[in-house]
């Protein structure tokens, strides 16, 4: 047993934690922006899947990984604009609109994929992102390999955390976004276009969700499978609540999930006699427990879920 839990194991586990957390961080950051403006985007699961599919196919056909990432971001924006049209402009239920987007995207992703590649015996693959070692830092023992020899999308995800935090809490845009999410009437009466802000926040968040999906097919794996997202979108929704709508705490939750995901993969290998399905459950189970025990005192944006309309009464 001691031979297994050594430093190499630890470095591998930490590296896996970072990698597994990356798509969750993208999705969580995207969802936080949307929810801070007052819109719950339950389309995230489908948007991530569409991002994964679009990113993969674009790279497959063009050979360019970054074009794939860009295409994933664009498709995320498009689907989020549809979400904005339904839930912000038309003022429909955010729950129903979001779930509708996810259902639509799930079907659409499979359809477009089949249309494009047919049903070959073995699925096509791309040459995925290769790790980018940061000079000097990657030579550090244990953490060097775990933290500083990662895909460039991983670095981008971790840079996003402080950027989104500063955007929300230190800039005038952030104050506008938070005011729209807390009290849209207050925003309207100081001259802010509530529906425009919400639409832009959904679009920006959708771009990040799309990239989070593309990470799965262009870095984490090198092919597209319909179950590639596997509920990670829903995990992001949970992480937003877990992190109390704060990007830093939300990312902490994503790291916890990534750690457990990396751990369960390794435990599958160690205790191979136990059905691996049980290990697959672990991160989701802990997520539920963490949500139940730690999120009692959350304060969601007060305007969340409420479409904004000027009161038309006398």
């Amino acid at each position, binding site marked *: 047993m001691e031979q297994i839990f050594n430093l190499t194991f630890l470095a591998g586990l930490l590296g896996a934690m970072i990698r597994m957390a990356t798509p969750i961080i993208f999705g969580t950051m995207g969802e936080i922006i949307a929810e801070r403006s007052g819109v719950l985007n339950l389309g995230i699961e489908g948007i991530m899947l569409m991002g994964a599919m679009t990113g993969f196919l674009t790279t497959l056909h063009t050979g360019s990984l970054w074009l794939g990432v860009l295409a994933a971001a664009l498709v995320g924006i498009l689907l989020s604009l549809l979400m904005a049209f339904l839930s912000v402009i038309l003022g429909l239920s955010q729950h129903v609109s979001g779930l509708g987007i996810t259902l639509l995207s799930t079907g659409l992703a499979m359809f477009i994929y089949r249309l494009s590649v047919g049903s070959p015996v073995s699925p096509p693959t791309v040459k995925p992102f290769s790790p980018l070692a940061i000079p000097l830092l990657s030579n550090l023992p244990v953490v060097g390999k775990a933290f500083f020899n990662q895909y460039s999308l991983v670095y981008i995800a971790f840079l996003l955390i402080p950027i989104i935090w500063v955007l929300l809490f230190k800039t*005038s845009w952030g*104050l*506008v976004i938070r005011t729209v999410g807390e009290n849209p009437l207050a925003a*309207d009466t100081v*001259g*802010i276009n509530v529906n425009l802000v919400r639409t832009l926040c959904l679009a920006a968040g959708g771009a990040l969700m799309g990239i989070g999906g593309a990470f799965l097919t262009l870095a984490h794996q090198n092919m597209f499978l319909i179950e590639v997202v596997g509920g990670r979108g829903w995990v992001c929704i949970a992480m937003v609540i877990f992190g109390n709508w704060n990007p830093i705490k939300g990312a902490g939750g994503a790291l916890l999930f990534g750690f457990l995901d990396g751990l369960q993969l390794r435990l599958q290998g160690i205790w191979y006699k136990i059905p691996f399905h049980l290990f697959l459950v672990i991160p989701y189970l802990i997520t539920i427990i963490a949500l139940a025990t730690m999120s009692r005192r959350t304060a969601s944006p*007060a305007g969340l879920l409420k479409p904004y309309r000027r009161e*038309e009464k006398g």
Partner: protein
Amino acid sequence: MSVISPKKPVVEMHSITKTFLDVVANNNVDLRLYEGEICALLGENGAGKTTLMNILFGYYTADSGQILVRGEKVAFSSPHDAIENGVGMVHQHFSLVPSQTVLENIVVGSFRGKFFLDTAAAKRKLLELQNRFGLHVDPDAFVWTLPVGSQQKVEILKALYRDASILILDEPTAVLAPLETKELFATLRTFAAEGRSVVFISHKLNEVMEISDRVVVLARGKVVAERKTSETSEKELANLMVGHELTKQPYSPSRKTGAPLLQVSGLTVKNDKGVVAVKDLSLTLHAGEITALAGVSGNGQKELAEVLFGFRELLQGSVMIGDQPLPFGSPKAAIESGIGRIPEDRMTTGLILDLTVEENLALENHTKFKKGWTIDYRALRRHAEKLIEDFSIKTAGPGAIARTLSGGNLQKIILARVLSASPRIIVAAQPTRGLDVGAAEYVHRRILEARDAGSAVLLISEDLDEIFMLSDRIAVMFEGVIMGMVGRREASIEQISLWMSGVKEKCA
């Protein structure tokens, strides 16, 4: 106070008309606002004051008419446009973000082209404004920690921070203590002295007399009068506000007044915000008599009614029905002890709009239709059919969804439900608000019939016509206390109006 020598008009509103569904809120209204003046917009609830100002603020768009600001024609499609033109408005219900600081609430959206929040510069500008206008609030305090008086200061500062030169205040003193009102008035005078203009919406005559230079009186969506404050009196304004002499003949008075059925003594009640809304109030209702409780909404009538309906806790005092105290926390017990409830907000606490007419008719007495564990829908249908006929409720049938009925017919459902249970005491809050003349008259006749059958009726209303037609005695409620009570025959409309505006002096 500055004497008015009308200078340039800053705002000119010409023939503004605004309709909501089928209610005309503003009917061809003209209004001018001059530099450096405080103009009071006076009128009863529903006179159209707030709607008119929301149009000037760009929150509503007028159906017709035009607005000129500093001589230029404007078409505001949102508050953004109004703010750009120097118009600021403090609504009666504040729009603040409780979880953010005072500074954040004030500066949000005001940074043009600046990406990062420059809190230091914003705070300097804010402190300068605070000193200039005497509006002291800690910029770093969270809004949820502030009392309402300070929250209002934040709202005013929001407008001043955007350099408003036209400030609209909607019933600003409703939430203020007397000392705070004095401070507010000082602020407004400083503001006007700088050559800027204030619109002060109110229905409190004494405050209008104290603060304004000019008074515009609105009634039923129209401007009915305009006076220089120095050339008018509270009495004249009270008459103008009501707008007309009584047109309708009163109904016949009570023939015989019976024993006291309900006795309220020393009642003190808090409202939802934890502020005392009813203060040491005593009132007795007699069998066969209609007691009207006149007064502008929001002076504690709602809280009093809720105590009588059994769902608001009293702080002090007692409510006796005969010789039994009214139990609290149980609307059911209130119904069983003989109180008939005609609530003010019929859409929300009176009816369940998504249930059928017959279900709504059975709401407070559905236990009468029990058959074992289930409801005897056949008996329920018979009950409903009888009431629909008796009260001539216009509906597709007992099975129709309540939402599909008109306002008058919805009120008839409540009336039918209450009166069919033959209550000894009826509390009717604004029973004809929003009804057309025919429906209102029907409601009046039914209430009179109940009175003649020996019920004691408490009629809570803002409508003086209704009060003078229907009641036997008139009490006036203002800021939680009864200002006075008088028999209908002895009552004058001037006296009642003055009491409603908080003026206690006797009429000559």
